[in-house]
């Protein structure tokens, strides 16, 4: 076996892959939350739909997206490989379960990760797959009067079968025609069970990252008495609290809006 293969087949090598993919997925969450904050804009989905359109049509983002999908798969597969190895390291279990001091999330990363994987599959098939491959989404047309900066919105029925989007200016009016993923958000989050599922999955993210973020730093060997408190603080408050609350507010807010329709 080559030295390189040996490195990544070793226990520490596999853990390195878990840590690197995990941290990459953490950075993705920041971008994902940042972009999705556009959902809170009261513009009938203009900003959000434009943003979704940009994400799916900008080549560098496409490349990063595929790195992201690979990271999710690698993180999950390596988690499974490591878990099986860990199970086989203790073929006969204890009669009295270990009572050692260890956080609940640190002991349940596999369970939390499994919830997240299920969530990612459902989430991506409902939004990402619908957007890219399913022709069920309708189109919206946003007309912005460039003189007054007032936007009006209407339905748009494409004239050609493979219509994707269009931006044009006529008589000082900017016309943007894009897929209406915002309507899918509204429709999805008007269902209570769907909102509940999202909130549970987001709670799983919180607990997964509460342990995962700082654990990744430990695995990489980046532990230092001077900056470790910063890692803990960031992992706990930013990834464990602020990011999950930000994500959870979206389904809850849209459910609230649907009640007042």
């Amino acid at each position, binding site marked *: 076996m080559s*030295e390189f293969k040996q*490195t990544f087949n*070793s*226990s*520490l*090598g*596999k*853990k*390195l892959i878990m840590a690197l993919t995990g941290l990459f997925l953490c950075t993705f969450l920041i971008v994902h939350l940042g972009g999705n904050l556009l959902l809170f804009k009261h513009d009938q989905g203009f900003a959000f739909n434009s943003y979704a359109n940009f994400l799916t049509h900008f080549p560098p983002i496409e490349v990063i997206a595929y790195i992201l999908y690979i990271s999710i798969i690698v993180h999950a597969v390596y988690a499974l490989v*490591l878990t099986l*190895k*860990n199970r*086989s*390291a*203790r*073929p*006969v*279990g*204890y*009669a*009295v*379960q*270990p*009572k*050692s*001091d*260890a*956080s609940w999330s*640190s*002991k349940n*990363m596999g369970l939390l990760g499994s919830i997240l994987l299920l969530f990612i599959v459902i989430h991506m098939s409902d939004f990402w797959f619908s957007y890219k491959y399913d022709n069920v989404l309708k189109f919206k047309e946003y007309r912005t009067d460039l003189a007054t900066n007032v936007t009006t919105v209407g339905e748009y029925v494409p004239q050609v079968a493979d219509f994707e989007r269009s931006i044009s200016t006529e008589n000082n009016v900017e016309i943007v025609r894009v897929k209406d993923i915002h309507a899918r958000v509204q429709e999805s989050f008007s269902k209570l069970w769907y909102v509940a599922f999202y909130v549970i999955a987001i709670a799983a993210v919180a607990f997964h990252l509460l*342990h995962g973020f*700082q*654990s990744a*730093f*430990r*695995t*990489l*060997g*980046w*532990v230092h008495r001077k900056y470790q408190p910063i890692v803990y603080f960031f992992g706990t408050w930013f990834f464990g609290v602020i990011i999950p609350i930000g994500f959870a507010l979206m389904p809850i807010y849209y459910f609230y809006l649907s009640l007042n329709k």
Partner: protein
Amino acid sequence: MSTGNMNLTLKVWRQKNSQTAGKFVTYKAEGISEDMSFLEMLDVVNESLTKKNDEPIYFDHDCREGICGSCSLYINGHPHGPKKAITTCQLHMRTFSDGETITIEPWRSAAFPVIKDLGTDRSAFDRIQQAGGFISVNTGGAQDANAILIPKVVADEAFNSATCIGCGACVAACKNASAMLFVSAKITQLGLLPQGQPERYSRVQAMVAQMDEEGFGNCTNTGACEAECPKEITLTNIARMNNDFFSAKLFREEHAHDHTGGE
């Protein structure tokens, strides 16, 4: 002083040898003094078993003062019992209350097969040590202690790691039966000091390779090992080991077999 005032029920793992299946057997431990150590309590039980012509319970023990790392009982869900920073031999019966049921199990790890009853074969640790847990020096007259200056924080950290007695409680406590706390303590103890530098990057590769070979699990940084370690070896050592390992594998020239004394 109170003596002979405790009656306990023991659920003890009995297993003839590594080939046979084991099971729990219940024993009464009567007239136990709260001043006895846990091992002395087992001595009393064994004496009565011997008198009845029963096979005494096998358990590992040697120094009985917390420094040899022989004793290794998993008591009521804790390696070395419920008290912090002590070994089983330093655990006293006053920790338990009269009438209590105590469950005693051996370390559970594929790499530590049960030899008999509560005794396990921990020679996997010896083989990891032999793979690189040493420094190769030509011995001779000791040089002046002040000739090599070592900052106090570094010396303290190295010494703290050197207090590891290799008992295996970290493996027993870990949900993944990982040996990384032990291995990282040995690596740190040598890697932090000037004498350990020449072999630092071959050592970490050799010891990690041997650790993997022995079939231990993988660390998930739960911290259970650190919580149960009788010598309070810290989790930071594992991060240091990871750092040295990745440096060695990705940025250094040394191979695992460049370790001069290992051959």
